[in-house]
């Protein structure tokens, strides 16, 4: 099996597994309990908070643990926007966001929040000008992701924040695909909320973070009701092993981010070089804008389903895992200008820490063979 679907989920780093297991085996108690084990657990949570914070240039107190980036995205949107008849709270987002943001936006819209969807250009980028054009006096929040999960294109979130700041508009960014793949600094980006996920960067699934900056904090309302955990923003027993796992993954990334980026870049560059040497293979999203770990290629003159079926032991995604489950062609690729057939005949190839040069060579051979056979079979 050659696994080139790290953008869907990464294996948990062995060093993370080891620390999670230590926590599970130690049997620490509920971090909220007042007694000694509870306090020990609390200090482990605090450490994890600090480890995540450090990787994005934030304060530990601003790190709010959630069950993943999906919940973090939902919390950002539902937590800040409350549809009210006499107080229109306008949201600007993009057509290339993850389903967690897009579906939340649609729900807000159904509940009476006006929402504007900005599209991306053919490079895969949402332009600052397009966002600016969508702003209204009643715009409360702009939500644009930092790295797109299908094309890997890095968005100009700092540029978007720059035009929102003087207008007092809060900015949220879904950085699930960016964490561990790009240097991130919430201060430099000057955003207000950021969603993170552990399982995209060597941590466990089922834990994420909403970073809440000081401008957003006074306005954020919780989605879930219950105990007072996470400053009242996120009730429920904090799952210590999960939170520790995310902390360790961030700590590891802190010390090897540059090396990781080099590794990812070298592998995807090599794969692109091999595959684009075939005729009729084009990049989805501009190469100079993409994050190092994701490569998205369109293959002309082959059927998408047949291509995916022909990859044997090479595991990749067409679009995101969620879109794939629905069997619909990727809305992100269509936003780039691809038609349904071309979107379906695209492969997202994403690498991780354990991907080797050998994996890349084999993957290139598998894809090349499949494409040539299908084309050979097709009408000339």
């Amino acid at each position, binding site marked *: 099996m050659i696994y080139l679907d790290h953008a869907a989920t990464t294996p948990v780093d062995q060093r993370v597994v080891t620390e999670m297991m230590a926590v599970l085996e130690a049997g620490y108690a509920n971090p909220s309990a007042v007694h000694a084990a509870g306090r020990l657990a609390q200090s482990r949570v605090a450490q994890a908070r600090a480890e995540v914070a450090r990787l994005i240039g934030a304060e530990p107190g601003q790190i709010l643990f959630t069950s993943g980036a999906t919940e973090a995205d939902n919390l950002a949107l539902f937590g800040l926007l409350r549809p009210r008849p006499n107080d229109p709270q306008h949201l600007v987002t993009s057509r290339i966001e993850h389903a967690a943001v897009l579906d939340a936006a649609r729900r807000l819209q159904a509940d009476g929040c006006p929402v504007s969807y900005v599209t991306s250009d053919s490079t895969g980028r949402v332009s600052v000008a397009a966002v600016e054009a969508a702003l209204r006096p009643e715009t409360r929040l702009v939500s644009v992701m930092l790295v797109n999960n299908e094309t890997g294109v890095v968005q100009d979130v700092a540029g978007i924040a720059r035009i929102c700041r003087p207008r007092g508009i809060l900015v949220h960014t879904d950085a699930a695909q960016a964490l561990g793949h790009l240097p991130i600094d919430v201060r430099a980006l000057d955003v207000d909320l950021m969603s993170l996920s552990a399982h995209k960067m060597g941590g466990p699934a089922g834990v994420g973070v909403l970073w809440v900056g000081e401008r957003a904090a006074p306005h954020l309302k919780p989605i879930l009701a219950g105990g007072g955990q996470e400053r009242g923003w996120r009730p429920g027993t904090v799952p210590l092993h999960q939170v520790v796992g995310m902390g360790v993954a961030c700590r590891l990334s802190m010390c090897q981010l540059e090396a990781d980026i080099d590794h990812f870049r070298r592998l995807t560059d090599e794969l692109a070089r091999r595959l684009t040497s075939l005729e009729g293979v084009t990049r989805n999203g501009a190469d100079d804008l993409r994050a190092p770990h994701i490569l998205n290629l369109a293959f002309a*003159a*082959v*059927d998408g*389903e*047949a291509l*995916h*079926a*022909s*990859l*044997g*032991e090479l595991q990749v995604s067409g679009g995101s895992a969620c879109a794939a489950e629905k069997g619909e062609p990727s809305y992100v690729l269509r936003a780039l200008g691809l038609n*349904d*057939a*071309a979107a*379906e*005949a695209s492969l997202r190839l994403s690498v991780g820490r354990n991907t080797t040069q050998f994996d890349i060579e084999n993957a290139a051979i598998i894809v090349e063979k499949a494409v040539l056979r*299908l084309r050979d*079979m*097709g*009408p*000339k």
Partner: protein
Amino acid sequence: MSAQSRYPERVWELFSQAPHAGRPVMEAGWRRGEAAEPLSATRVRVYLAIAQGCIRDVRYEVRGCPFTVAAVALLASRWIGQPTDTVAVDPRGLLSELTAPVMKLGRMLVVEDAYRRALQAADQTA
């Protein structure tokens, strides 16, 4: 485990072996039929070698999903050696024979069109 487990065994075999696939070396003497569906970019081209009211040989070119390829290949194997007045394509029958999902019916209609047109076509006399 691989992608093949997502397809019925029969479909997988026909898709991956694609018996009789290809274009005739010399098109003279072959009838040709073509059909396409632009949304999914499915395209099927069928070549029939007919002599004395009998289908002597079949070739095809196809761009389509594994079910489409399987349907085209299945018909090719089945039509070879048949008198032209006994062959027919039943798109719904193909669906159930290949245990394909209903959403594939459109593609089976493309397959039918291509075969029907080839049958009705005049010889390509080059």
